[in-house]
């Protein structure tokens, strides 16, 4: 029964290289995120949240632990995609082609860690700073 779905899924993900840039904004509540100069205060707050809720699975260098290393993530992904991935990971890995490909690569479903919208924006700022 599920075989046709599965083969489609494999086809859809097979063509995506997760290491390169994608314009996808992902799926979720963030459709238009403005970024300009770095907000250092937000970046500091974002680091605190990242340390408690993300660091068990992600490093900020290139090392894969449970999930991918996050160095360069703000160059590879749009701000909307990053914020949707943090707040809506289950739907993202089901519907967004890039997130689907990442799940196939890392095999662990990313979890929503009860991060607020403000905290999500702060994490984005921390990751931007990490990529400077």
């Amino acid at each position, binding site marked *: 029964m599920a075989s046709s779905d599965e083969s489609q899924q494999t086809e859809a993900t097979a063509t995506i290289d997760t290491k390169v840039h994608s314009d996808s904004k992902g799926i979720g509540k963030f459709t238009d995120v403005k970024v300009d100069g770095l907000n250092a205060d937000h970046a500091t707050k974002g680091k605190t949240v990242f340390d408690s809720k993300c660091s068990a699975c992600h490093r900020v260098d290139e090392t894969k632990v449970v999930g991918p290393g996050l160095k360069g993530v703000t160059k590879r992904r749009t701000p909307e995609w990053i914020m949707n991935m943090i707040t809506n990971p289950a739907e993202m890995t089901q519907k967004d082609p890039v997130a689907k490909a990442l799940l196939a690569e890392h095999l662990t479903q990313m*979890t929503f860690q009860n991060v607020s919208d403000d905290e999500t924006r702060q994490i984005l700022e921390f990751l931007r700073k990490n990529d400077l």
Partner: protein
Amino acid sequence: MSLSTPYSKLVLATAVAAVTFTTACKPKKAETVISGDAAQKVYVAPGKLDEVYLFASGGFSGQVAAYGLPSGRLLKVIPVFSQNPENGWGYSEETKAMLNTSHGFIPWDDAHHPQISKTDGSDDGRWLFINGNNTPRIARINLATFKTEEILEIPNSGGNHSSPYCTENTEYVVAGTRFSVPIEGNTDVPINTYKENFRGALSFVKVDPKEGHMNIAFQLLVPGVNYDLARSGKGASHGWMFFTCYNSEQANTLLEVNASQRDKDFIMAVNWKKAEEYLKQGKGKKTPTTYYHNNYDERTHSASSKVEKEVLTLDTRVLKDIVYFIPCPKSPHGADVSPDGESIVASGKLAAVIPVFSFKKMTDAIAKKTFESEFDKVPVIKYEAALAGEVQKPGLGPLHTEFDDKGYAYTSMFVSSEIVKWKVDTREVVDRIPTYYSIGHLCVVGGDNKKPYGKYAIALNKITKDRYLPTGPELTQSAQLFDITGEKMNLLLDFPTIGEPHYAQACPADVILKNQKKIFELSKNEHPYAVKNEKETKIVRNGKRVDVWMTAIRSHLAPDNIEGIKLGDEVYFHITNLEQDWDVPHGFAVKGAENAELLIMPGETQTIKWTPKSTGIFPFYCTDFCSALHQEMQGYARVSPANSTVALKSGIGETAPKNELAKN
């Protein structure tokens, strides 16, 4: 799938027989009374939720089971008075204290009567109370977390049976003693001095309206008989509580014969507002006793025990006009109060009628002192003076009555195995339906509320012969679901239960769902060994005690390599589940642990104590399949000899301990 197994044939044959013989005089089997649309009425499609929560006691299992109705699906077993291996309840360091009593650590009890907290006489879905019968206790379960938060021991009690019934606004839950016992001064007395030395204690447990915390406000010392069940007044009768009593013969041996001599036993009517007045006037007496009070703190995820040393008592031999007896035919079991609070239905197990008393007539009789006698200094109201009327020929062995929203009462008949429906104002029987088999309590959704929900009645049965595939001498017990929306009751479903479903209460799912908690917020975790962040994990030695501060997240434990534990150490693994995602617990087990395993909810911290018995490498792992890489969620603890020089170290990945050989 093939239908050729012998059992399928049997089922088909029975179904055919049922169709053939519906008009013949065969004993009614389930197949003959099920109406055609029963399956549709209990079918809850995948993805759809049940309409009603049913909370049934596990009887001798000591737990509570939550079922969904109309599907009859078991949703959850909530551990209360018994250790529970599934989640380490009563085994983990955090929860052991919940089972402390003045008799020591008691890992098993008998739980009978769940009671949902009430506001204005209706189920409010905040807490569920239930009694521990054998070692008298009352537990409070938080219905936002489905976790037992408090267990209060009841002193001066034996067989905490008429318990824990709550008043209209949960001002009190009561705990009446089934066995009277000697309670003050020298309790080492001959058993046959029952009449002189034994007394009953009815405990009124105050419930804090905000947090639900319980404490014994006072105990009424009452005549030495057996107190069986209770119901509070409501509406018209708010401020009163009604207890059934048996053994007014005050027998102390061969009760089956000796306690059924008299034609009538009693309902005890308690005016608790009057008792409160006496307390205000300082008439209570502080009596020394010892009992435990255990609380589970939701912020620290940990329980602690407190020992209480005295209780306030009011003696009904001294203080009059708190309690009255109403005669009630032979060995009454339930005393149930109608939604308007005016009718008190009493069921004499051995009686041929169901007497219905009028609250108004009862209070008039008290005002006019229409008493027939005194029993141990308590006035006995004349039967006819309090009686509204009798339900004639209801069936054999009436036990319990609950009410619907249309003016009908439903009484369970233990001996004749049926439910009898009758009209409260005329007391005429209008319908009856068989149960499978030996029904004890029954439950109507909201059936003890001022405004019952009605719709379903649930039979809680003692015997299940022939209902399911046989499993050996010990069969599961069962509950049955009836549609009571029409004139005639209709059987919809029967389903097996855990333990004995002694009594149950049910309320619409919405009432519970609105308060549901889905995760424990990490930022609010105040457990002393909580780790909010993987970088804070560590291992600390203090003499022979080793504490491991560990985290769990999909899909690793941190630290996952531990060295430097020595034989003779006591190791405490404190594990914090870092997930903040609903429905992702992690488990924890370590080889050779003589305790159970742990199951840790998202954001929670739980502790298991491990005393290694030999040197070597001990694997530990997550027991709850949590992700594709669940099998990889594991680690090793190294145990060295007591005199070893291996340093205490722990880590994960590049921080894991390296290359330290044993040197002895």
